[in-house]
């Protein structure tokens, strides 16, 4: 089999894998939430509620796909697509195993940051295009939140880049052959996880949709598959951030005995479960707390991490 064919097949496999994972997470998250919060979760459709995803899909696809007459139609339609496009594009640079990667970019990590900075528009535009004051508030919150948290998301990765000496994700994994980066870069790891939580807009950072004050925030007016795209987009985001945490801080595909791909999947799933555990156990922050937490605590910490890491590398060389 020649090169282009192989990469196209790989591309489809990863695409299907990511979509299946995102869909499966709908079920997994509710089951785990049920377990951790001492309640049932979906248990009617199929064994252990395993057909819940199928039921949800049927419901989402057959619902009326309504566009409010007062909405800005083109922007309203584009907004949910942006989040799916940017998240799926980010998966292109993640090395799942030594051989399994769609493109091996020199600037892989920058590409991810670029895509995640573009994904802001999805939520902000959805909030604006709905022409509804609750949606607008949600969109505004999303824009301010993502702007603040993106700054130190990039900074938190600076330590990893310095240690690995590369933006290339594959080289970053290779650089962790001796020691996984979460040990020398523990502050960076914590900051990245927090930024990742904010980036995927999950509890405790789900202020853009805060259902008890803003109905459903930015996606109040959305229904049918357009809502489904936000829904699945969020789970794809969780998968993406988890895969990145595994790649950047936990040695990616490396591990004993099992084949590389297995290790990558196991690590990713551990972090996905971590995300769900955070959701199950933490309350939502207040909005001013969220912003001041980001700008006044996380940003200085991220800067400090860069300075200290740089100084240590300089001293060691």
């Amino acid at each position: 089999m020649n090169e282009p064919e192989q990469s196209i097949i790989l591309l489809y496999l990863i695409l299907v894998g990511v979509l299946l994972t995102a869909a499966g997470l709908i079920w997994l998250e509710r089951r785990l939430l049920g377990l951790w919060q001492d309640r049932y979760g979906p248990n009617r459709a199929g064994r252990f509620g395993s057909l819940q995803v199928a039921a949800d899909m049927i419901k989402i696809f057959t619902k009326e796909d309504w566009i409010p007459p007062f909405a800005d139609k083109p922007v309203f339609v584009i907004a949910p697509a942006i989040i799916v496009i940017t998240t799926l594009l980010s998966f292109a640079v993640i090395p799942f195993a030594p051989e399994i990667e769609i493109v091996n970019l020199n600037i892989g990590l920058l590409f991810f940051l670029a895509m995640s900075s573009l994904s802001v528009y999805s939520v902000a535009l959805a909030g604006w295009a709905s022409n509804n004051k609750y949606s607008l508030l949600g969109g505004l919150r999303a824009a301010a939140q993502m702007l603040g948290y993106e700054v130190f998301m990039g900074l938190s990765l600076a330590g990893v880049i310095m240690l690995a000496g590369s933006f290339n994700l594959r080289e970053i994994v290779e650089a962790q052959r001796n020691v996984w980066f979460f040990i020398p870069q523990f502050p960076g790891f914590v900051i990245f996880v927090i930024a990742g939580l904010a980036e995927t807009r999950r509890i405790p950072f789900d202020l853009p949709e805060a259902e008890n004050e803003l109905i459903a925030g930015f996606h109040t007016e959305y229904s049918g598959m357009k809502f489904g795209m936000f829904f699945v987009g969020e789970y794809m985001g969780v998968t993406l951030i988890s895969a990145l945490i595994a790649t950047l801080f936990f040695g990616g595909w490396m591990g004993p005995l099992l084949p590389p791909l297995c290790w990558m999947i196991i690590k990713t799933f551990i972090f996905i479960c971590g995300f769900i555990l955070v959701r199950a156990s933490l309350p939502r922050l207040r909005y001013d707390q969220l912003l001041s937490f980001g700008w006044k605590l996380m940003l200085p910490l991220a800067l400090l991490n860069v300075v200290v890491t740089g100084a240590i590398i300089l001293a060691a060389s």
Partner: protein
Amino acid sequence: METILFYVLAVVTLLSAVFVIFLRRPIHNVLFMILTMIGLATLFILLHAEFIAMVQIIVYAGAVMVLFLFVIMLLNLEEIDLPREPRPLRWGFGVILSLALVVMLFPVFKSIAPIINGVAQNGDLAAASNLDLIAKELFTTYLLPFEIASFLLLAAIIGTVVIGRKLTKS
């Protein structure tokens, strides 16, 4: 192939730039501005300048334009209240100014003309990792200006945080 791609991307970029000026809802203008930025980034990629392309997206499309969007949403701007028919004087002035700009930029256009035709002329530019090249130049040849610029930016970041802290106390 690269030439076709260049023309398609150039047309998209230029068209969105035109829409930035002629559409009347500020949000649409911002959207097309973002598209222009992304178009420029793709053109940088065609020139093998991936790093600059990514910075273009992260800084301009991702951060600066979010601020634009944020302000427009905050002020809830609908249509811009401009006179529908621009006055002839304004037209004439604009045309003269843009012509002057073209004349001034002409040497630049001329010097990059071979690159526009599809391939980067400099062989090792395409071969060497762009990132290494930029890093080497920045930290050797242009060390002082680079450090000054980065120091200014850092001061600005810390300054905003300090100002924000003061405001909440009072």
